[in-house]
């Protein structure tokens, strides 16, 4: 049984740019070779600035080789290049040969090695957007999703070939769409969504397309490219690869330069600022500052290059993805708990191959479980809201010139420490926007309330002791549960009034129905359900860890005191 979502207003949006050749991402990929070289050259200069002497440079190179070899030994992936070991062995040999050279000779050779490494990285990071395969992928997704939806929903022979339902009925896009579409024409968009599931990348790709926006450049974790089906999607959607195993200076500089330059060239960009999927199920609180800082740098460079003229402005758009169900939840929460329980390192691993994903997709489209995507207000790179014309506004609604943030002594200047602070402020603003535009689902509400109630009933137990309780012993009487849900929902309404959170339309109405909707949808496809009704109609759980995961979605709103 499904509680009706308010009539879906989602409409089809016309593309804001006519042909693919106009898209910035296409321009970038057409000149891929030149762009990669430009990135390499800039990164090379940056690394040289940080490591000015021969000795420092050689030490850095040695450390890089060492780390790369360790990585290959310990954690090699399918997606890694075949010639990798040879490349690094050769670099190592060349470095060893430098030990008894004079400093001048060594410097020349070291520069050459550094450039070679950086060029390799830049090439690896760079995306490979192809219009033909982009179109093909897009049509493929649309076609098959359409078949799945219609075949599953309309119980008539031949429904399989109808187009009564489309993805737009499954995925609700809410929020500041008009502003986003308008500003995407006059500025560069940097979209920063929350990250809960590997599916986010595909989902957001679809969202961007269906909003009529040109393809974005993705910063996607390299691990995703291990899964072949993802690799195909990503490559054709213009993804650039982020390898979180590589923490060496040349790599990090190259990655940042890539992103900065792409933004500067006007390519709409998307990355997940949380870094990896949220392990706990909670909305990200700490963002990775590296890629965020590239938006600030790109904006500053734009002002620097163009001191008097009009500058293409960069807009940061927070987005939250709201699910009833996260495919990887059981593993994510296990990761989270084992890290929290005992500080140990867990390499990222994906148990979900192409087959599992297809299975999930099939289930997703055949059963009632909706996803909603909230588009936040556009921000400038300092985290100020902007108006419909892209002007930054202060808290009193007065227009601010973003350039002024980079001015000292009446001219635009580069100050790394200043921009680090700006990055931190931007990151805080994005986190608070996440909480503000997050849409509470019935399933989040029931998970939150149930877990908190069990915690309240065992005040002496810490989290781990609580999670170890046998699930058979945990029962919540239905009436009591409903009452608490009402109290918490009231507070959610209150928070919405204050502009601190949003909620799905299905959260309103009779609490019995809302609870039923939530219970049916929370973690719907898991083998062990986080919440169920027992024979007497009371609330039980089959997996407390999972329940904890879904509960975490509403942590951070101070709702605990209403339990």
């Amino acid at each position: 049984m499904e509680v009706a979502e308010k009539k879906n207003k989602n409409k089809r949006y016309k593309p804001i740019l006519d042909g693919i050749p106009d898209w910035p991402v296409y321009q970038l990929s057409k000149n891929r070779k030149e762009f990669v070289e430009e990135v390499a050259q800039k990164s090379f200069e940056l690394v040289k600035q940080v490591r000015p002497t021969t000795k420092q440079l050689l030490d850095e190179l040695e450390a890089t080789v060492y780390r790369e070899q360790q990585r290959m030994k310990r954690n090699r992936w399918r997606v890694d290049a075949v010639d990798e070991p040879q490349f690094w062995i050769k670099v190592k040999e060349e470095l060893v040969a430098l030990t008894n050279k004079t400093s001048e000779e060594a410097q020349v050779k070291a520069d050459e090695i550094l450039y070679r490494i950086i060029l390799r990285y830049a090439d690896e990071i760079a995306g490979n957007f192809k219009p033909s395969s982009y179109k093909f992928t897009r049509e493929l997704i649309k076609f098959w999703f359409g078949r799945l939806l219609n075949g599953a929903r309309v119980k008539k022979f031949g429904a399989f070939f109808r187009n009564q339902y489309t993805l737009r009925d499954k995925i609700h896009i809410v929020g500041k769409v008009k502003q986003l579409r308008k500003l995407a024409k006059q500025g560069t968009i940097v979209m920063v969504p929350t990250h809960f599931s590997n599916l986010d990348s595909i989902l957001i790709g679809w969202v961007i397309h269906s909003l009529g926006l040109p393809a974005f450049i993705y910063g996607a974790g390299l691990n995703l490219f291990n899964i072949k089906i993802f690799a195909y999607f990503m490559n054709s959607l213009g993804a650039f690869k982020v390898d979180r195993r590589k923490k060496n200076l040349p790599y990090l500089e190259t990655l940042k330069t890539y992103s900065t330059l792409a933004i500067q060239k006007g390519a709409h960009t998307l990355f997940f600022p949380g870094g990896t999927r949220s392990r706990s199920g909670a909305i990200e609180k700490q963002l990775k500052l590296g890629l965020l800082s590239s938006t600030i740098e790109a904006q500053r460079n734009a002002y620097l290059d163009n001191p008097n003229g009009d500058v293409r402005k960069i807009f940061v758009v927070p987005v939250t993805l709201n699910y009833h169900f996260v495919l990887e939840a059981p593993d994510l929460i296990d990761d989270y708990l084992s890290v929290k329980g005992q500080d140990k390192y867990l390499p990222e691993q994906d148990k979900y191959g192409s087959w599992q994903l297809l299975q999930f997709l099939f289930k997703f489209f055949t059963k009632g479980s909706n996803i909603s995507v909230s588009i936040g207000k556009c921000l400038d790179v300092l985290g100020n809201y902007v108006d419909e014309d892209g002007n930054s506004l202060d808290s009193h609604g007065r227009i601010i010139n973003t350039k002024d943030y980079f001015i000292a002594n009446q001219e635009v200047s580069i100050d790394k420490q200043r921009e680090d602070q700006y990055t931190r402020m931007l990151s805080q603003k994005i986190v608070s926007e996440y909480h503000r535009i997050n849409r509470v689902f019935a399933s989040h509400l029931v998970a939150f309330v149930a877990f908190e109630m069990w915690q309240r009933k065992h005040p002496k137990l810490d989290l781990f002791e609580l999670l170890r309780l046998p699930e058979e012993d945990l029962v919540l009487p239905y009436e009591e549960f409903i009452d608490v849900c009402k109290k918490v929902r009231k507070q959610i309404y209150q928070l919405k009034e204050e502009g601190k959170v949003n909620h799905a339309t299905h959260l309103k109405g009779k609490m019995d129905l809302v609870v039923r909707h939530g219970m049916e949808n929370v973690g719907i496809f898991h083998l062990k359900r986080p919440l169920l009704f027992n024979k007497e109609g009371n609330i039980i759980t089959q997996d407390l860890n999972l329940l904890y995961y879904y509960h975490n979605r509403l942590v951070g709103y101070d709702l605990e005191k209403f339990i």
Partner: protein
Amino acid sequence: MTSRSLSDKPVAVIGAGNFGSAVANLLAPHTKVLLYARDESVIEKIKLNRENRGHKMHDNITPVSDLAYVANSCDILFPIVPSAHFRSMMKRLSPYLHPYHILIHGTKGFDITLPKGESVDSINALSRSQVKTMSEVIREESVAIRVGCLAGPNLSKELAAGQPAATVIASQFNEVIVLGKRLLRNNHFQVYGNNDLVGVELAGVLKNIIAIAAGALSGMGYGENAKGLLISRGMVEMIYLGRSLGGNTRAFLGVAGVGDLVTTCNSSLSRNFNVGYRLAQGESLPNILESTDEIAEGINTVKIAKKCADYYQVKAPITNTLYKVLFEDLTMKQALQYLMRYPLNVDIDFL
């Protein structure tokens, strides 16, 4: 950037009080200074006599009364007005500020925002969301983002006399610290930098409580042992309060913490010290307030800090008893007796 010479724009000091005048005089040898005063008569007086509140004003200082003019002429501003008027001053200044402005304030007090119908006396406890430091007020009220503060043992009269002293410029932005140093430093004035802006602000504000207590001990005629006791225990209390309000222990151990504390606790030049001294001599608070021309920030600070301590359940015996003396009917003698019997016997437990 840092090595380039300063532009020829003047630097502004907002507030022509005692400390504001002293800071203007410190700046004046390095740059032209606009000194803002709300009161036209003050401006006239300075123009006429080159003198204000006992400070002989440097020739580089021009007194002005137009905030818009000040903000348009200067990139760097030093707001130094009492905390009670700080927010309203910022509201008036804010329309003229841009993100390129740099503000370094020198006000050691709290700002409080209360729900309608409440006053600081009627409310039972204050949480951090209601109590703001001056830098937070600047950020809330304006687009200025590069903000800093000036704190340390800076008794205006000694500064005016050119005696050796030091101060801390605290800011999250190194460029603000560098600028502050360049503008203020001279042969007998040392300037340190600190990145913990809120910590330094809290240290500067909370020390005023202990300063009143020190004045009281002195007023009762007690000697150096008592003062040593007070300063060390006061320090512990400041750190507890400070941490509950979001500061770091380290800021309290620097020039703006211990440095300022020792100075104000030993000096009859300090207004806060004076309030405590006269209270212990038996004068009543309204009486004292009537006869001083400038506000002793400490009185308000005691009130606010006591209610914060209640909210966060921090042990703050000195603040609490001082509160009772100031606003309830406890006498200084009783307060001291109470404190000496207070069952706290661990020396240091915060490091």
